[in-house]
């Protein structure tokens, strides 16, 4: 017994180190293995509050670009209103949204990371505004990411610049599907993989969200094809896609609350159970 105590006293530093190392490694592994089980996130009271304070100051620096983006969007919406005779364009616009206006929540980005492999965005609206995990986040130019965690006032978003994110997308012209991933290299480009060789792809074609996922409505812009590769192992196309969004400079975003999703999920679950 004495010897055990002696051992513990003699190696107290090493034991403390090992204990703390286990805790931190556990947190690391947990955050890597499954993004739902993340314990430590910036959607909490402390860091959310600090980021909101910082953003209150720094948003003044971006007022000009933010205004320009809003003016552009206004112009686009006005052109739709004034050209109502062109019924084709109006229909197309309504289809792009595909959701009720009341299902869209406007929110502000208070923290945005884009320099690591797993990037997250923090927004200043949370479960009090009806935000739930797995809702889609877009802005006027294209998609941003998917809501990960929520607290009463804040929420974190898995950015499309996250090597773990995987979003269903398609080529607008031909309706061929693929999954959108990020290889962790450049903030301006993402990759569309597993596009069948049958698809006709050309540089400059537009990529939009596909209808297979219930998170995003169909036909929301993502980017244009920049480069085309053929994967040697699988013989599928891999496309480099230039994003419409500048992910390093985000202001206001829209969160899509889709009521259909729960219904669809329930249906799929019931089908599986039977």
């Amino acid at each position, binding site marked *: 017994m004495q010897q055990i105590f002696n051992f513990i006293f003699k190696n*107290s*530093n090493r034991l*403390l*180190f090992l204990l*703390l*190392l286990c*805790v*931190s*490694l*556990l*947190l*690391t*592994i*947990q*955050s*890597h293995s499954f993004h739902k089980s*993340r314990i*430590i*996130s*910036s959607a*909490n009271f*402390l*860091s959310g509050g*600090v*980021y909101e304070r*910082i953003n209150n100051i*720094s948003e003044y620096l971006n007022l000009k670009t933010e205004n320009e983006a809003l003016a552009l969007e206004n112009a686009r919406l006005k052109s739709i209103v004034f050209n109502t005779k062109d019924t084709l364009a109006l229909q197309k616009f309504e289809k792009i949204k595909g959701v009720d206006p009341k299902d869209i929540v406007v929110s502000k980005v208070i923290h945005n*990371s*884009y*320099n*690591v*492999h*797993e990037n*997250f965005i*923090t927004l200043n609206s949370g479960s009090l505004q009806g935000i739930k995990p797995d809702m889609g986040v877009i802005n006027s130019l294209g998609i941003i990411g998917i809501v990960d965690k929520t607290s009463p006032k804040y929420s*974190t978003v898995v950015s499309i610049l996250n090597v773990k994110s995987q979003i269903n997308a398609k080529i607008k012209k031909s309706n061929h599907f693929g999954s959108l991933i990020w290889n*962790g*290299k*450049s*903030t301006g480009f993402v990759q569309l993989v597993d596009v069948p060789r049958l698809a006709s792809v050309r540089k400059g074609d537009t990529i939009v969200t596909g209808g297979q996922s219930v998170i995003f409505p169909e036909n929301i812009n993502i980017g244009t094809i920049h480069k085309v590769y053929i994967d040697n192992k699988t013989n599928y196309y891999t496309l480099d896609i230039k994003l419409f969004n500048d992910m*390093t400079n985000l202001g206001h975003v829209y969160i899509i609350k889709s009521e259909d999703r729960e219904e669809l999920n329930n249906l799929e679950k019931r089908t599986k159970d039977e």
Partner: protein
Amino acid sequence: MNSTLLTNILRFVLLLAVQILIFNNMTFLGFIIPLPYLLFIILFPVNGNKSGLLVASFLLGIIMDVFSNSGGIHATACLTLAYLRPSLFKFAFGVSYEYQTIKLNDVLTPERFSFISLAVLIHHFTLFLLEAFQISFFLDLLIRTLLSAVFTIISCIIIIYLIKPNKK
């Protein structure tokens, strides 16, 4: 309970604040961030309480993780650095480490420089290894470690010169 403890608490808070408010927003080439907050571990008194340093570095890392949504990678990296610090002292300063006369918070000498660079390299390598978490990014990992380490070392030295006690 004296001024050393107070200095260290103050340093802990100030370095974290500077890191989160200023240096986290400084990005070069899109992926390089200087991380001078680990100066807290480097400047901790040589003869200070070792378990205290371990716990403090763990807390330092966890707070960084909360702010950057990164699980436990900063905590692990800081903890590794804190644990390896005595061996680094022996490596960089040789015999004089035994007499505990080292003051890091002073003019840059080759010994101090090698100690700081080694500490930063160890911290960054652990950090980026855990951040990538797979071996396929290995080359990318080395590039990130080296480039970020350069910027961190520069910012650390600048901060040391700024807060160096002036005695003449």
